[in-house]
């Protein structure tokens, strides 16, 4: 598999996995009244400020043959987790976590509480309120979350380097391939792949901003003050 396809596959897997994982967490963060909530918010935001090497280092420790995740994986699937696509996927999910949780949480919080009360008073269970009111009104935030996770995973380098190594077809993503090509002075090849990544990233971000504009309000992006 070419590095570019691998990158796209990884990004698509991360985005869809995170949508499922981040949804309940964002819901809980948006509506819980627990006082210690800020602690979990800080944990969720950690990958924004941590160097990818730190995250990658701990991921590697956890996934290694002696780490808890590595042991579990070995027992369940009969092979290790480090330097595999699965391992890369797990580390990438952690790395893009805030990019899924924060836009979703922002979108959930911006749904007028009075509509949630109205829904409950009209006999709707919390689950139905989530499906019929919160989810449709949060659609721009959901699109933002998916697209940002996709783009962010496409652009990751440090984590992939730490956890994935550079095994062709398995963990050698586009960003790693570019680095390798530059190291071996293949500037032409590096240039081509860099340009493709640039164009894809631009297209993806255009979608985020178009959706935000269409929604008539600014949703969360990592580059704008909330």
């Amino acid at each position: 598999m070419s590095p570019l396809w691998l990158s796209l596959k990884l990004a698509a897997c991360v985005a869809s996995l995170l949508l499922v994982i981040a949804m309940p967490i964002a819901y809980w963060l948006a509506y819980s009244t627990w006082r210690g909530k800020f602690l979990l918010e800080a944990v969720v935001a950690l990958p924004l400020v941590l160097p990818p090497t730190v995250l990658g280092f701990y991921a590697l420790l956890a996934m290694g043959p002696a780490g808890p995740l590595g042991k579990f994986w070995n027992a369940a699937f009969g092979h290790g987790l480090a330097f595999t696509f699965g391992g890369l996927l797990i580390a990438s999910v952690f790395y893009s976590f805030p990019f899924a949780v924060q836009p979703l949480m922002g979108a959930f919080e911006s749904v007028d509480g009075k509509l949630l009360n109205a829904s409950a008073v009209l006999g709707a269970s919390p689950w139905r309120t989530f499906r019929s009111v919160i989810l449709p009104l949060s659609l721009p935030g959901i699109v933002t979350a998916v697209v940002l996770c996709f783009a962010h995973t496409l652009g990751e380098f440090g984590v992939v380097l730490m956890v994935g190594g550079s095994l062709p077809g398995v963990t050698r993503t586009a960003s790693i391939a570019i680095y390798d090509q530059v190291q071996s002075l293949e500037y032409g090849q590096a240039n081509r792949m860099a340009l493709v990544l640039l164009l894809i990233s631009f297209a993806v971000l255009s979608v985020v901003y178009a959706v935000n504009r269409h929604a008539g309000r600014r949703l969360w992006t990592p580059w704008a003050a909330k």
Partner: protein
Amino acid sequence: MDAVGREITAMLQVRVRKSRRGAGAHRQPFVLDVSLDFPPGITILFGPSGAGKSTLLDCIAGLLRPDTGSVRVGTEILFDSAAAVNIPVHQRRIGYVFQSLALFPHLTVEKNIGYGIAHLPAAEKQRRIDEILSAFRVAELRRRKPAEISGGEAQRVELARSLITDPRVLLLDEPMTGLDDDLKALIIEDLRAWRTARNIPILYVTHSKGEARALGDHCVNMHSGTAASDIPHLSAGSSSGF
């Protein structure tokens, strides 16, 4: 006996105490402490803002949890702190029209009105929607979104959305704020007609003496979390009053 029996079972009995931390201008802690019986018919809740009218409605609907006390409709207990009973909001079957409009912005008028009766078979649901759309003279708006209708129309849709669920108690928190007098008269007419068809307690919060006079069978004056009522007080379970 039948008529008397029905009236007694439909009675809403509220004994609640709820303290809230200070909010608003004076930041004084506020305590709602009332013991009220609401018979079928329209009871006006009257009083200055901050008197606890909305807090009382929230406690009845289940949006707020009283510190102590009980809320019951007829023989059914909705809340009882002593017995640790607290029926969730969505299972209480209490209609509530909020002070500010709360139509779902992403749904059409028709879908908004049908929201509370989603469990009914499709044909029956459609029949009820059509019926109430024309009763409230909003049938021509059925395909529009809330942003595309006027404030007065939204008010009527909101009322229709609550009434269609056949609530056993109806709470109206200043449902006609900001409407002109003609529209008010129309809606009051709708409400009166509906009230005679269904014999349930209706609590109506208003600042307007005119609305109070036009609608109220009874009046409860609230002040600083306490209430004075002109309703003959019934002790729970007693039928001697009627």
